[in-house]
């Protein structure tokens, strides 16, 4: 069982029911569950979208797109059925927050999906979980069945004239299907190759119908927004970044875990106070602020508010909220290699810059780290990565290139320390440490 952590600075909304038995539908109702969906049924689409816009909630899947605005793009009239698709593919290294939502509070995901459906006029929602999350799919399936039994799903939900169905769905191992158009392909029973945009999913999505795709955390936040009101929710966060976020802190901190904090919370405080500081009193070397695809930050760059705009201004991205903390024992070349190895493995192979670029980067970094590096490799690594940027069908190419460029730019010295056939000057310090101090 994943360990739950807690800290007095936390503002618990999405995580408020963690560890409280809310997988049980009656317990969930006791904990104010399904109130927001009832309100949404009564007050209708325009009210929901107005509250969502006022909340300045931005998507928690990575790109941070304003959720209310995304929903308002769906055409009111449509010949084809509209759909809600919940993205629970959660595969960005460093990210495990949706895991906890499905485990502890599956009904919030259902409730959020119903509300999203009401907002856009959809009658069907899909909840897509990565294949590795089988035990969470079982929890989700039971929650859905219980919601049907109570009349919250199916025909005439909450005693209204409205119908809404939810189908849970499993993937079978693929990071790339987390990309929204690949996700739709996968749900249609195909390989997870992205679609070319436009058209955007809000207009032509799943089965050709207008589709809203949201991350599981985004959807789980929606009922909280409606219950407290969009404006009140917005006030918790920073400017244009409403509310709270589940930050997963992993790596070399004393107390790794998922913490829910207001948007704009200081990254340095998150690491040193909330997560207990660097393990064993060691020195901080680097922070990957939002999952493996976000460019690395130096210790001098972390006095920074964690919201989409501030992290963006600092040259990185808030991404999926997975904060990975590296102490002085890490070899940055090896870390860069492990990162690119992932993207090489996950590239769907459709476009050449991504398929070949990740492969060459992996080969070069492997040789480089093993002691076969030449001085010109360093610029070549950066050049290879820079030539992938913006030249691919989907953002996976960028996701691989951006961190790589960051590692070379900010830790060039460590690359140079590997030259001339020297064995990795950093590796030994790291090996055979007690795993959890």
């Amino acid at each position, binding site marked *: 069982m*994943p360990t739950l952590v807690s800290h007095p600075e936390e503002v618990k909304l999405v995580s408020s029911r963690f560890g409280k038995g809310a997988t049980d539908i009656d317990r969930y109702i006791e904990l104010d569950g399904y109130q927001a969906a009832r309100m949404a049924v009564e007050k209708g689409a325009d009210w929901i979208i107005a509250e969502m816009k006022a909340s300045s909630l931005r998507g928690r899947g990575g790109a941070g797109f304003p959720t209310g605005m995304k929903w308002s793009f769906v055409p009111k009239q449509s010949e084809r059925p509209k759909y809600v698709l919940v993205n629970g593919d959660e595969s960005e290294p460093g990210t495990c927050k949706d895991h906890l939502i499905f485990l502890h509070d599956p009904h919030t995901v259902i409730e959020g999906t119903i509300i999203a459906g009401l907002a856009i006029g959809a009658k069907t929602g899909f909840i897509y979980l990565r294949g590795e999350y089988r035990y969470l799919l079982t929890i989700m399936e039971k929650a859905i069945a219980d919601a049907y039994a109570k009349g919250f799903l199916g025909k005439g939900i909450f005693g209204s004239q409205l119908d809404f169905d939810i189908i849970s769905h499993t993937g079978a191992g693929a990071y790339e299907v987390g990309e929204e158009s690949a996700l739709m392909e996968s749900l249609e029973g195909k*390989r997870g190759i992205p679609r070319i945009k436009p058209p955007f999913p809000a207009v032509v999505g799943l089965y050709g119908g207008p589709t809203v795709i949201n991350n599981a955390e985004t959807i789980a936040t929606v009922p909280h927004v409606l219950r407290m009101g969009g404006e009140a929710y917005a006030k918790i966060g920073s400017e244009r970044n409403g509310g709270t976020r589940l930050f997963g802190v992993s790596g070399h901190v004393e107390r790794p875990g998922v913490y829910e904090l207001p948007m704009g919370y200081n990254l340095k405080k998150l690491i040193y106070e909330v997560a207990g500081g660097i393990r064993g009193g060691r020195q901080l070397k680097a922070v990957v602020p939002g999952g493996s695809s976000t460019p690395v930050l130096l210790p001098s760059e972390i006095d920074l508010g964690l919201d989409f705009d501030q992290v963006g201004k600092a040259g990185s991205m808030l991404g999926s909220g997975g904060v990975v903390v590296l102490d002085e024992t890490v070899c940055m070349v090896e870390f860069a290699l492990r990162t690119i190895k992932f993207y090489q493995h996950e590239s769907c192979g459709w476009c050449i810059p991504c398929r070949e670029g990740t492969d060459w980067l992996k080969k070069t970094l492997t040789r480089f780290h093993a002691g076969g590096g030449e001085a010109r490799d360093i610029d070549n690594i950066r050049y290879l990565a820079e030539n992938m940027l913006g030249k691919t069908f989907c953002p996976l190419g960028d996701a691989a290139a951006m961190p790589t460029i960051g590692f070379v730019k900010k830790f060039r010295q460590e690359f140079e320390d590997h030259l001339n056939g020297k064995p990795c000057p950093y590796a030994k310090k790291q090996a055979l440490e007690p795993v959890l101090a």
Partner: protein
Amino acid sequence: MTATTATLFSPELAARLDKLVTLYPVRRSALVPMLLYAQDELGYLTDAAISEIAQRIGITELDVRNVLSYYSMLRTAPVGKYHVQVCTNISCMLRGGQELFEHCKNKLGVGHKQTTPDGVFSLEEVECIGACCWAPAVQVNYDFHDNLTPEAMDAVLDQYRKQAGK
């Protein structure tokens, strides 16, 4: 395929698959879950299973194979009774995931994507499994084990070995 046609799956799974194809706006949407559930029962996707699933959905076997080859969890050859999947991705790497993978290699005497001669264990180095904050993490079949040390890993493996004996 109707419920009365011969199936190579258990009655429970066959019933589940019958229902699965009716859930979605198009039958084909059931393909990936069907493949995974079939694999769970059979251990891997046999030629016969692929053929039956192709018929159930109404697409060609080639089409099925084309899809299944995309997904890393789907396989067309058997693995051990307990498939040990060690994450070595970044968060786990920082907490000893790579050392843990080496440890499993030595302990089980097999490498990446190999199976022990008695068929009890197979080993795979995997990408992030969504347990980064509880690293290093391992999945054995679908069960998560986290906050592992080499010693804790030994205990986990011993537990499965005992279960295998039963």
